[in-house]
């Protein structure tokens, strides 16, 4: 007997059988008990089958592509270690950018792994569930490959060795940590909006690209190889982010106001957290890629503008306070670096004042603000250093209840005046750096009142003790090694010794 001629299914049909075809409507247990979390936020999904898979990757293809990328990446990392690749970077000051990355960003990749597993289990539609599972795997990949990439630097430089311990405790690391805690403790659709859309789609070019391009410009072959290797994963994450937003908006008109509120919130949260990246780009890279302001113009004003124009057909508008964030792009890096310079004694990386050449670059890139508002302060600090009176701020700063950054930001329209906002909730007064952060609190006061604010905790005696030495010990930060200025640090001494030895070898 000849079997009937084989009919060929198209890729879309085949992929549907391989993924959502596996799913079934449970009857021994109620669907609402199997999927208890995907309705409480008020997002209405009328037909999950309308979900368009943003990419079609069966597990065998996933293993194959990803395994191949891992082989190549680890070959480069091995070679980087064998050839002492750390000697080839532009300057040892650069290493501080990756200290910030490992302590601030890598633990977030792990959190993302966990919470995409949560979505991969708890979203009722099988299509997005599979996509979320792959992202959970990818995020674990990013956490682990970042650790393995930076592992070599940890062997030669200070500030890396205690990264998970520091992430859970250090004052400025509570900024990225609370950002991600906020997303993971939200409902699944808010998490999708926060991380897949606002973060991965709208803002990723302002986080991932600056660090990876910074690595490329500064001779860090290991990190830039990681960056290239993660690029195709990021592309998948972005397509998931845009699909999720469109899907929610297409499913029911009632979803729009909820989604808009989340977009407003997460844009502002992202903008504040990315201030750390802004500072890294403008002050910490010995060889600069572009200024934060330029990056903001290209990746938010232009690309984000086009995106929101496209999304306007769903009724979604540009995030609230986008104009304020754009104005702040001229200030935020300078204000942040000034904060870290003043509190260098409690930072897990080194600080320094910009050189003349670097100040000239900043003047050129920030013609409206640098010379007028920030150069004089840096020059004054330089004079104080020359007199042996390096300025340290020994008072603990007030933190914003929402973004948790010290309240060092200025008023919109007046860069000479620090902005303060406050509100009352259940008899207590809460303080904010901006209208954006205050709005976020007022929308969810019971959530944000819970924040573990590092400065409050120090004052309450929960951080090892009352003086700096106690707190540093509690942070596992070694005084004189992990903190303070780059000048005179063990990192610098070692780097200078390496350079001298290389000169000798070169004759």
């Amino acid at each position, binding site marked *: 007997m000849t*079997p009937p*001629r*084989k*009919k*060929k*299914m198209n890729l879309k049909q085949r992929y549907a*059988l*391989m993924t959502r*075809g*596996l*799913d*079934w409507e449970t*009857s*021994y*247990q109620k669907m609402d008990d199997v999927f208890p979390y995907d309705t409480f936020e008020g997002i209405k999904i009328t037909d999950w089958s309308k979900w368009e898979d943003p990419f079609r990757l*069966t*597990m*065998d293809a*996933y*293993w*194959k592509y*990803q*395994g*191949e990328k*891992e082989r190549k990446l*680890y070959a480069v990392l091995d070679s980087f270690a064998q050839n002492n690749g750390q*000697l080839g970077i532009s300057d040892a000051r650069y290493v501080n950018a990756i200290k910030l990355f490992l302590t601030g960003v890598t*633990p977030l990749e*792990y959190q993302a*792994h*966990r*919470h995409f*597993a949560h979505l991969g*289990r*708890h979203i009722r539609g099988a299509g997005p569930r599979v996509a979320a*599972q792959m992202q*959970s*795997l990818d995020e*674990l990949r990013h*956490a*682990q*490959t970042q650790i*393995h990439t930076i*592992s070599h630097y*940890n*062997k*030669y430089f200070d500030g890396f060795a205690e*990264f*998970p*311990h520091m992430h*859970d*405790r250090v004052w400025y690391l509570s900024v990225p940590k*609370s950002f991600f*805690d906020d997303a993971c*403790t939200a409902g699944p659709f808010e998490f999708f909006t926060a991380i897949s859309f606002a973060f991965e789609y709208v803002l990723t070019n302002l986080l991932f690209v600056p660090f990876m391009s910074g690595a490329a410009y500064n001779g860090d072959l290991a990190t830039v190889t990681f960056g290239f290797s993660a690029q195709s994963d990021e592309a998948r994450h972005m397509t998931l982010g845009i699909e999720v937003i469109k899907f929610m908006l297409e499913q029911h008109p009632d979803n729009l106001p909820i989604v808009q509120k989340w977009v407003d919130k997460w844009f502002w949260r992202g903008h504040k957290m990315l201030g750390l990246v802004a500072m890294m780009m403008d002050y910490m890279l010995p060889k600069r890629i572009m200024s934060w302001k330029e990056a903001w113009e290209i990746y938010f004003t232009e690309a984000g503008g086009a995106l929101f124009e496209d999304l306007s057909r769903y009724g979604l508008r540009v995030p609230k306070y986008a104009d304020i964030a754009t104005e702040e792009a001229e200030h935020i890096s300078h204000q942040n670096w000034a904060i870290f310079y003043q509190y260098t004694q409690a930072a897990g990386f080194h600080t320094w004042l910009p050189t003349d050449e670097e100040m000239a670059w900043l003047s050129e890139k920030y013609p409206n603000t640098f010379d007028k508002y920030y150069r004089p302060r840096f020059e004054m600090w330089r004079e104080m250093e020359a007199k042996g009176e390096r300025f340290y701020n020994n008072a603990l700063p007030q933190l914003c209840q929402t973004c948790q950054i010290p309240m060092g930001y200025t008023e919109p329209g007046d860069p000479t005046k620090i902005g303060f906002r406050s509100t009352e909730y259940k008899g207590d007064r809460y303080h904010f750096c901006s209208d954006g952060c205050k709005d976020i609190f007022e929308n969810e006061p019971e*959530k944000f009142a*819970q*924040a573990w604010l590092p400065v409050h905790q120090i004052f309450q005696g929960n951080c090892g003790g009352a003086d700096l030495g106690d707190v540093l010990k509690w942070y596992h930060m070694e005084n004189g090694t992990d903190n303070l200025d780059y000048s005179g640090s063990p990192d610098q001494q*070692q780097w200078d010794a390496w350079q001298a030895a290389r000169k000798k*070898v070169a004759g």
Partner: protein
Amino acid sequence: MSIDIKTMNVEPKRHTFAHVARRLGSDAPASRYEEGVYDLQATTHFHYRPLWGPEHWHFDEGRTQVKMSDWYKFKDPRQYYYGTYTIARANMHQTTDRNFAFEEKREMLANIDPEWREMIVNYLIPLRHYEWGANMNACSISDTGYGTAITSAAIFTAGDRLGIAQILSRVGISLGNGTGDLLDDAKAQWMNGPAWQGMRKCVEDSLVLKDWFEALVAQFLVMDGLVYPLVYNHIDTEGQKHGAAAISILCEFMVDWSAEHNRWVDAVIKVAAKESEENQALLSSWYSQWRDETHKALQPLAAMVLGDGADSALADVKEQLDKRAGKLGLNL
């Protein structure tokens, strides 16, 4: 003569991260597994209670009744981090692809007796839904588990179960001459076939468990511990008598995977049971309860496929699993 390449000698200040060194007992060079897994999960100073479950932090030891002094005792004997995991699975699946090509070239599925072919649609292909249930449990363990040692291995397992469901789907599509028709038939069995309802109920019951460690015992130790040997050993052997050699070849991935996966499961159970008498009692009671229910649920399925041989096959897989559980330190 030896070749002497001149390089600059630079001495490392330390050999690994401080938290890894504390676990190893000294600053010795650590493996990529150790650096990629140890202490990666945040443990303290969380900011907000989850809106979806304020009784716990999002990472919280209290999401299981099992108590451990250290959640990194659950070291994976396979030492899988993402790189070693994906490379190992890519290699395994290469063999599966070759097996599918081998079968297609020789049209081996055509050699299967027609009545057994129908049986395959009734017993094997519905397992793709069982695997999807296992995938959900694995995701759940990765979501609510504690410590990277557990959550990383769990998400790898989730990927494995989806991959296996997809291999089974491919078998169904090949048997159905390139169409999804037999997948529909098999799904009807899973949804309404009397042979499957007990197992479907077991799976659905496992999906509403609140304790992730109980889900781990129910799914990975008990359900898999009975289903895999029954299907890929006893029933497969029976299939040989009906010309189903191709099925053995196409299911080779599952046999190899299960042997490897069990090494991890056994390590987890053993460590947890050894930790305390309370853990041991808890695991033992979960084990007995799920073993009895699963064993009962499998009876109509085994009877449908193996007829008179069903009881002895089920008795054998149960005995083997009890032996294994005993070795892992459970009280039966």
